[in-house]
Structures are given as C-alpha cells and as structure tokens.
C-alpha cells in the first residue's frame, strides 16, 4: 500500500493534522493502534478545556501554539459541528500571596497574545460570576476566550471530516517499524502490513518517543503523568459557570472544576508521574486528592458525593524536554514530530497542524488546494434531546428510529445509535463517544443490552464478539447454557 503522508495516531493531534492535510491534494493515511478515534488516553480522558494561552512562558513552543490554537478552534469546531462553548475561565487566588501569580499569568498572557484578560478583585462581582466559589477567594484572572469542548467528540468530528475529504484510516494497526533509506523515510511497517510513504507524522501521544526511536531519533522521552477525575450528575446543578482553576503549580494547572458541554460538572485532574503507560487505574488516594481540591475551590461540592456518576483517569504524555516537540528531523528527512503534546495539546492541535503543513511545504511537497474540500461535517441528529418539536416531528416521520429512545439517561434514540455505527463505531465505547448512550447516571445499565443487540444486527456479527473498546474487551463471554453443554467458550452457537 502507498500514501504520500502517514499520520501515526488518531488522537486529537493526529485527527486535526489529518483534517488539515485533507484540504490539499495529498494522499494521507492514518494508522491507529486502538479500535477507534480518540481511544488513547490523552484525548479520551482529557479535561476538554480550550485554554486561553497564558500558562506557558513566551518563547516556548507551547505558548506559541496555545493562543493561536484557541483562536482557530472557534471556527473549526463550528465547521465540524463539534460541541464548543466559550464559557471563559477564572484562575482563582485563595491566598494573598497567590495574587502575584495571577499578575504574572496576566503578563504572560499579554506577551502570548491572549485577548481580554482581566483580574477581578471585586468580591461581589466575583461571587456574582460564580455564586458557589469559595468565599475566601481573593481575586481571579478572568479569561473570556477559554472554552469547553468534548475532546473525543471533537477528535471524532475532525477525523470524520478528514475521511469525508479523502483521508484513509486504519484501526487496530500498530506501527512496528519505520524504514529509513539514505537518511529519508520510505515507509512504515505495521501489524497489518506495510505502507510506503515519504512522510511520517508522529502524533503517537504516549508512544511518540517509541515511534521516534524507530527512526533512530531519541532526543526526547515521554513520561506518563496520571490525572484522575470525577464526573457529577447533571442533577447536581450549575455548580460553576466558568472553568475554575486554582493558582497553578509548577507541574500542573491544578485540579479544575468545570462545566461540561453536556451540563455535567467535571472535577480533576491531579498530577502523578508514573512509569507504566498502560496504568489506567484510579486510586483511592488520587481520587481523594481530586475531591479535596475541588471542594477547596467550590465548597458546596462537599455535599455532592451522591451525585458522582463515575471516576476515570487519563495519562498525559509529558516530554522530558518540558515542551512540545514539533518539527521535521534534520537527520531523518520526512519524519515530523507532533509530540509531547500534553496540556495544552488539545488547544494547540490546529496550530500545530498548520505548522506541519508549513514543514511539508518547506520539505518540497507541492500542496495544492483540493477544490472539492468540504469543511462542514453534518452532526448526528439528536431530535429528542434537542426538543425542537417541528424538527423532531419531521425527522421521526422520515425515520421512525429517531423517535425510539434507547438510552434513558441521555435520551439517545435508536436512530442516533444506528447512525453512529454507520459512521464507523464498532465498539460500545465508540457508540458511547459518538452518541452519549451509556454515559448517564445509570452507566449503561438500561441501554447496554439494547446496544449490544442493535450493534449485533447492524454490524452483522454475533453479540458475543462485541467489545467495549477493541482487543480483549469482550462484553459477553458466550451463550447461556454453553458452559453446561461443555462449550469451549468461544461464544458461538453450535
């Protein structure tokens, strides 16, 4: 198989690069070791905040791409119809000595080109903006351009639009080697065969140093930094209106309390450096730290323990070089890194994608605009959830499946689920990320069996072969009575 450019990784960075490249007459293939877009930890378990860009010192790669990325997302998210809300953020000083840090962040923000930053030190105004904020808050840095999104939906939307514009994507395809001849990339080997390509873009997230190592480059190492989260029921109410940050520490922006685009409250993450890139375990102590951190900012969260829907953890790809690694290699031509993109990686992605295009052009690739490029993606219709009566009525009369609600908590219809499957979901999590079925307070207790049945019918595979998220994550282990018949548990009827 051949391609002009191979992108390794279908997280938010790889998806955004793929979508940017799909604007040009260039043959792009994306390879992803997981079963779907956004299944890797940094994108899936991400706070979903589009940062304004004041955190990183001017001159860093992060600073350069963060504020530009923020500005770019405003338009792109609309084009691909991904959830996006400019709610603004507040970095809160709870102690007098923290006020100085806010001033410093504001200076950095100015230098980085972040618009409309303001320090709010009027108590009344601050608490009118955030009625549940700790009464002890001294002041806060307001950044109106901060936004929230759903990171996996955004990545899925970007990749869907890229594929619509000609990008090919291969899932469960792990890169095992990269061929370099005479100092130039000529192709990649994967668990599913070879792809010849002159350019390889490394957007492999937690595994980016391994990919880089395959061409003999080892200028950076990725260390996983674990962050744990709690998500609260929508019933907990509007606890916060903005993204609420504590004053940052040297290693992290701290435990955030933020609304989600769906109206839940998300709290987290803590920051713990670990060794194992596959350690996706939440811990008793980590979750306690997250809870305490959130209660410090918003004390009334302390009464909301019964509103916890679930906890989860994510790993940030922290590079030992302490900055994003974005650029082409001098020694291995055709190899381009978009690596080490921990926070604000989500925010920076579209800016980094533009940089990748620059690098390709400078490397002599002729990038001709694709006339047929369609920037718009049609979202999956959610007639019942939107409660737009005339829209719902006309859609349901065309396709009655859009009237049949399958997910009781999030009001997701059969029509949406079938559409998600048609758009490429092959796993329960794939359906969940595209539709929210199973994300509510009952956590799939009601819709789970229905989803398995719908997926089995639509994908024409036995229900026992359906996985939660690919590989060995099978949901059902066979047919009833199989063990009694001495079945070998491969899950099929005789």
């Amino acid at each position, binding site marked *: 198989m051949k391609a002009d450019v191979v992108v390794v990784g279908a997280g938010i960075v790889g998806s955004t690069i793929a979508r940017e490249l799909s604007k040009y007459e260039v043959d792009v293939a994306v390879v992803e070791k997981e079963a779907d877009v956004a299944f890797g930890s940094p994108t899936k378990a991400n706070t979903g905040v589009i940062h304004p860009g004041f955190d990183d010192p001017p001159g860093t790669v992060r600073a350069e791409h963060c504020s530009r990325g923020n500005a770019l997302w405003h338009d792109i998210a609309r084009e691909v119809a991904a959830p996006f809300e400019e709610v603004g953020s507040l970095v809160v000083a709870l102690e007098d000595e923290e006020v100085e840090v806010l001033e410093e962040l504001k200076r950095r923000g100015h230098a980085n080109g972040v618009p409309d930053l303001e320090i709010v030190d009027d108590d009344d105004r601050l608490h009118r903006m955030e009625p549940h904020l700790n009464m002890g808050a001294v002041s806060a840095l307001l950044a109106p351009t901060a936004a929230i999104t759903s990171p996996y939906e955004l990545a899925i939307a970007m990749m869907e639009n890229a594929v619509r514009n000609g990008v090919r994507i291969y899932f469960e395809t792990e890169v095992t080697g990269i061929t370099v001849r005479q100092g130039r990339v000529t192709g990649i080997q994967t668990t599913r065969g070879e792809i010849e390509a002159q350019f390889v873009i490394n957007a492999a997230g937690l595994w980016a140093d391994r990919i880089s190592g395959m061409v003999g480059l080892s200028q950076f190492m990725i260390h996983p930094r674990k962050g744990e989260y709690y998500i609260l029921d929508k019933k907990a109410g509007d606890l916060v209106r903005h993204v609420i940050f504590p004053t940052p520490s040297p290693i992290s922006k701290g435990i955030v309390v933020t609304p989600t685009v769906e109206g839940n409250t998300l709290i987290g993450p803590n920051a713990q450096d670990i060794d194992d890139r596959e350690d996706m375990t939440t811990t008793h102590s980590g979750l306690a730290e997250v809870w305490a951190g959130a209660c410090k900012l918003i004390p009334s969260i302390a009464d909301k323990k019964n509103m916890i829907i679930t*906890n989860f953890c994510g790993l940030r790809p922290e590079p030992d070089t302490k900055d994003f690694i974005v650029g082409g290699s001098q020694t291995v031509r055709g190899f381009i890194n978009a690596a080490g993109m921990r926070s604000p990686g989500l925010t920076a992605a579209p800016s980094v994608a533009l940089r990748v295009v620059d690098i390709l052009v400078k490397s002599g690739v002729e990038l001709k605009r694709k006339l047929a490029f369609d920037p718009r993606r049609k979202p999956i219709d959610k007639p019942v959830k939107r409660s737009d009566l005339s829209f719902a009525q006309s859609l*349901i009369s065309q396709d009655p499946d859009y009237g049949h*609600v399958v997910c009781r908590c999030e009001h997701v*219809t059969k029509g949406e689920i079938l559409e998600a499957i048609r758009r490429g979901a092959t796993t329960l999590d794939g359906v969940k990320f595209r539709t929210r079925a199973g994300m509510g307070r009952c956590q799939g207790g009601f819709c789970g069996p229905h989803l398995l049945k719908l997926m089995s019918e639509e994908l024409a595979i036995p229900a026992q072969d359906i996985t939660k998220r690919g590989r060995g994550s*099978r*949901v059902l282990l*066979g047919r*009833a009575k*199989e*063990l009694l018949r001495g079945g070998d548990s491969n899950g099929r009827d005789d």
Partner: protein
Amino acid sequence: MVEMTEDIVVIGGGAAGLAAAIRAKETGAKRVLVLDRNGELGGILPQCIHTGFGLHYFKENLTGPEYISRFVDRAGSLDVEFKLDTMVLRLKPEREVVAANSRDGLFTIRGKSVVLAMGCRERTRGALGIPGTRPAGIFTAGTAQRLMDVEGFMPGKRVVVLGSGDVGLIMARRFAVEGAKVEAVIEMLPYAGGLPRNIIQCLEDFGIPLLLSHTITAVHGAERVSGVSVANVDEKGSPISGTERTIPCDTLILSVGLIPENELSEEAGIILDPTTGGPVVDQRMETSVRGIFACGNAVHVHDLVDHVTETGMTAGWSAARFALDELEPLKNRIRLRPGPGVRYVVPQIISGDEPVTVYLRVRNPVRNAMIRAGNIAVPVRAARPAETVTVDFTEKRVEELSGEAELEIGLEEIEHID
C-alpha cells in the same frame, strides 16, 4: 405535535403501573393509558425467572413472568391502553406528560391524573467510587440478569458478586446454575442484605462463600476484568489495611442498592423524601402535587412485589377517583416521622380517621421489639433492614390516635414478646 388527553396516564408498565391501571379501570376511569420505555410490559419481572413472587398477594409461589402475566392479562381484558417503546421525557405539574416513540414522534398527553410508576434503577460502580481500571465485565445484577435470562448470553464465567441484596444473591445462583464459577459474594455489612431464604437457597445450597464485613477496594484488568481486590472492613466500613487480597475473576456483578427513579418527579416539583429517594405520599399515594400519584419502587424500594402491587392498587383507585372528581381532600393530615431505630416510613402522611397499612424499614437488625406510634404499640418478633415491616393501623388502632399533626414511629427493643 400530537396532543392527547386521557383520564389517567400511568408512567411505567411494571408491577406498580399495571396494578394502578387495573384498579383505575375497576374504579370507573374510562381512558387509562400506560406508557413504558421497554418493548414488553412487566418492568423487571419478565427477567425474574426464579420463584418467590405472589406468596402474599396470590398465596401462591410464582415466577416473575407468571406473576406479572396475570396483571398483563387483566389489564388487557379491561381495555387499558398501552404505548410501549415509549420514553417519557418530561412531566409538568399541570399533569402534562411529554414522551417520544417511533409511531407518534414527540408528543404531549394531558391526564386528569397521572400515576408515577417508574420503578427504580441500580447503583453503579461509579456511584460507589471503586477505584482501579475500567475493563469490560462489570455489570449491575439486573443488567446481567437481563442479558442472561432474556437475551440468552453469559456475561461471565468466573464471577464475584458485590452486595448481598436479593438481586445479587439470585444472580449468584443463576451464574452457578449456568455452570459459571461464583468465587464469592462480598458484603460490607456484618449481616447479609437479602432475605434469609435467599441466603440458604442461593448461596448455601450452591456452596458460594459469603464474605461479610468485606468490600472491594480495586478492580483489575486492562481489557476484561482479571480480578478484584477485597479487604475486611471496620465498623465504619473502611478497609482494614493489611487484609487486602486479590480474587481472580472475569466478571464483577454489582448488587449495591436500588434508587427510585424520580428525575421526572423532581422536574414536576414534587417533594421527595431524602431518605427513600421517592416522593412524599399520603395514604392515597398522592404526591405533593395535586392529581399526581406515585406507587411501587418509585416511592421507595420494596422487598416484595406483592407490596408493590398493593401500592399500585391504592394509587390507581385514588387516581381514578381524582379523575372522576370524587376524591375529597384528606380531612386530617398527620405527618409520620421516623423515630428511634426506624429509617423511614411510607406513606409519610396519613389521615388518622381510616385504617391504613404503613411500611417501615428498621435501621439495624432487631429481635423482639415494640413499634410505638403515639398510643399505639405493635410487637415485632424480628426485623432486618432489608425487609419492610408492615404495620396495620387498624380501625381500633386509628381510634387511639390523638389527632396530633405529627406522629413519630419508633422502635424499642424489649425482653420478649408475650
């Protein structure tokens, strides 16, 4: 948008909703419509293929499907109307119900009265906050039961059950009967949650270990569950360090509590009891919103379906009388408050001038106790938190009520009952 009017709209076609619909028809309501989100009637009962249903109501030992089919048949013969695969999305206090299905689209129904019979849902792993990985193979007991007994699949082969409530015990047995290995049932409390008969018939008869005063401290497995860590807990329920050990398994079944489904009730502004999680109701099962009645597990989680049916009957009668403009407001309203040893009492409001049956739950297991409410004293031989205690305020007992606005119902342990 389709708009309809009905005499009575019943939300939920399980044991409570069907009983309400039947009794409403019997009481004279003309048009009774039951809405249910499932494709079949009966709520949870069609998947409860074990026996133990109907011992009180029919004086027979029936399976879930047998029990509920009697009500489904009766409702059909009374021309109760049904809309299945229909999700109720919103409820307004003026008794307006917004629902959706594939035939009618998004539609509104006005009922002269509305009966809430949404039942309850299961607490999840997330609500418990068990740390660890998030692999496939974690199911609530009811979901596992549906997968096994309705859909015909094996959710797992080597199973640990967390929680010794009845659903958990029954699923432990179902897995064992299907040839799966049930490693243990784990219970945080020092006593089992389920009915004694289920401890014997589901665990002891199958040699399944019951680990009391234990909890699960972590889930293991990257893709599918590979095991769980369990530990002993102290009196406060906190894991005791040093007692942790791992039980290998491919499946974790959660039977850790049921929560009345009341998102709709809350939306309608109905007052909920923070302890039961269901609406505050009076002895006619009327909620704080006039003309909206509630019954079954939406009000509080029952141990026996027979009681669910009883509350449904009461709600159906009241809803019909209300729809016919024949339901006089209660003359007196005596607020029942849980006293010492009592966790909650339902109904929370009685009139005090007619006989009524009150359900209560005790806080801790007791032997030989006296339930006291004002001048009334009713002996109980044994009561456990998992079982509801029924107290009949008979005509004679009601006469002894002094007519106060509040009545505390408490429990007092005594030497012995004569």
